């Protein structure tokens, strides 16, 4: 590959499959232009799982939409940066071309499987569709492929169920069907946007296991987008935490959770109720996420940050490696050393 590997993220093992560099996305609204993403960089390699974590409005889903050329038009557009996949910059390609590529090589699953499935077609028809459209297979052959996929994602009694309609399936089964459709053409990158948020915990665990198994089998790269720090901990090796459109901390998930270097990450971890908080008060982050239309100056987290100083209001802190910590761990905070010492 000709592209140079950006040094701010030297975590992945092999050559990155998908590399996002300094991505910025803007939306024009009646109240003005909103920068939903700013300076977002990350990459994923074959067989690797990256979690993108953050609260609502932090830009996780916009990141996925930008990669897949699904940004709502005409309001949203890529305002800068590159999305490099297989040597080409997707951000510079016409939407039609990106969609074509995404159909076969980059796939996505969404939070709500019911609204992503067409209620008036049998699921067999819907799963077979990519084989017919993209691979030019005949009806019979595509149907057989669909059946194979249904079995692979663990739908019991697939031979009969393939003739059923989406409403006849439970939420977890529908998500399995969505996964079947997404992996149909053997994508090299799978983006899962809150794949288990709408599901019960037991089903949630099954779906995460299924995704991990499929990844192990196919060697695809997996980008897991979630608001839930717990759900991804078992599956992802690396994570990026987003806040107000920027990545504020990134690194190996285990190290980040054990030693958060950004006060926001620390605040999120402290907010989660657990056995150790029974009878005690939770320690929430004060205030609320900022309005993207009027972001605070400097670090956008400073009004909520217990570590904030005057310097934090002056300039947006770049991602950097805290003194005395190992490479993959980066945080966008000028006081990471103090945060880590706490």
């Amino acid at each position, binding site marked *: 590959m000709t592209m140079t590997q950006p040094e701010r993220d030297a975590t992945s093992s092999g050559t990155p499959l998908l590399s996002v560099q300094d991505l910025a996305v803007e939306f024009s609204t009646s109240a003005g232009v909103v920068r939903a993403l700013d300076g977002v960089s990350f990459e994923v390699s074959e067989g690797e799982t990256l979690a993108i974590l953050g609260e609502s409005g932090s830009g996780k889903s916009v990141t996925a939409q930008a990669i897949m050329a699904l940004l709502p038009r005409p309001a949203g557009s890529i305002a800068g940066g590159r999305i490099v996949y297989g040597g080409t910059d997707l951000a510079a390609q016409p939407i039609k071309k990106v969609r074509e590529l995404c159909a076969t090589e980059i796939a996505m699953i969404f939070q709500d499987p019911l609204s992503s499935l067409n209620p008036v077609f049998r699921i067999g028809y819907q799963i077979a569709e990519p084989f017919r459209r993209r691979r030019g297979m005949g009806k019979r052959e595509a149907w057989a492929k669909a059946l194979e996929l249904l079995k692979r994602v663990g739908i019991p009694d697939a031979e009969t169920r393939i003739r059923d309609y989406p409403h006849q399936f439970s939420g977890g089964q529908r998500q399995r069907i969505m996964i079947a459709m997404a992996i149909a053409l053997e994508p090299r990158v799978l983006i899962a946007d809150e794949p288990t948020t709408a599901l019960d915990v037991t089903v949630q665990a099954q779906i995460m296991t299924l995704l991990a198994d499929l990844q192990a089998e196919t060697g695809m790269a997996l980008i897991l987008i979630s608001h839930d720090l717990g759900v991804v901990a*078992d599956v992802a090796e690396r994570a990026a935490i987003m806040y107000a459109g920027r990545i504020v901390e990134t690194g190996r998930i285990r190290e980040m959770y054990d030693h958060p270097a950004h006060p926001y990450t620390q605040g999120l971890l402290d*907010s989660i109720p657990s056995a150790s908080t*029974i009878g005690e008060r939770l320690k929430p982050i004060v205030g609320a996420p900022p309005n993207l239309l009027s972001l605070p100056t400097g670090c956008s987290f400073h009004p909520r940050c217990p570590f904030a100083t005057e310097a934090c209001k002056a300039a947006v802190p770049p991602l950097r490696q805290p003194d005395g910590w190992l490479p993959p761990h980066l945080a966008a905070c000028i006081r990471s050393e103090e945060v880590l010492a706490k």
Partner: protein
Amino acid sequence: MTGTGPLLQVENLKVAYPIRSSILLRKTGENVAVSDVNFELSAGQTVGLVGESGSGKSTVARTVIGLVKPSAGRIRFDGQDITDYSPRQLKSVRRQMQMIFQDPQASLNPRLTVRDIIAEGWRVHPGLVARSRWTAEVKELLERVGLNPDYSDRYPHQFSGGQRQRIGIARALALRPKLIICDEAVSALDVSVQAQVLNLLDDLQRELNLAYLFISHDLSVVEHICDRVMVLNRGVVVEEGTAVELFENPQDEYTKRLFAAVPVVRPWLEQTP
């Protein structure tokens, strides 16, 4: 307060929906949503209902508040048996049980200002707060739930999700309830905001001696906030006990499976033998 016993007593509660034949609408069977549910809830206490979707959690709550008629069993509130109350009789009882819903966006009327949303209950229950006191009282309530009292003329869309949930809480408090049913009340909120709302619920309970019936699919939230917990599976309580007991040492197979599926933030901490 009327009685000295528990505030809410639910005995052998059963809710079944009839299945009718397609032509003559004759009853051909029944679909049992919940059966044999028993529990008590005292002032100042929180009882949690957990279970997967379809387990009957919300049905129990809807029956308690009188939106669904039970097929069998008794519901006593503050010493009175309210099972067979007429809608008119229920009205005064219902004032004392309020509900906070999952989606604050959908449960607040977008055309009303915050002041009107909170005061609506006083319109329905005249005599509770004098009309001349409404504005002042709304401001007090907003302050109580941690919102700027000057926001009373704003509309719901001008608030964030967490703030809207605070408005929902203020609306519930406006009627001076003894029992608040929280139906997935914090499930739609981001963790940092969720923690704020949980702390607020905790403060209000201490201060006003409120009883909470807390329904959630989020088991770590339930473990944190509840005194007692009931686990529902397909409409049946499979296990109940104090939160500490239950989460530390679940007995029932279903409960064990449910708890085992809860994602752990730091799974590596539990893997060390």
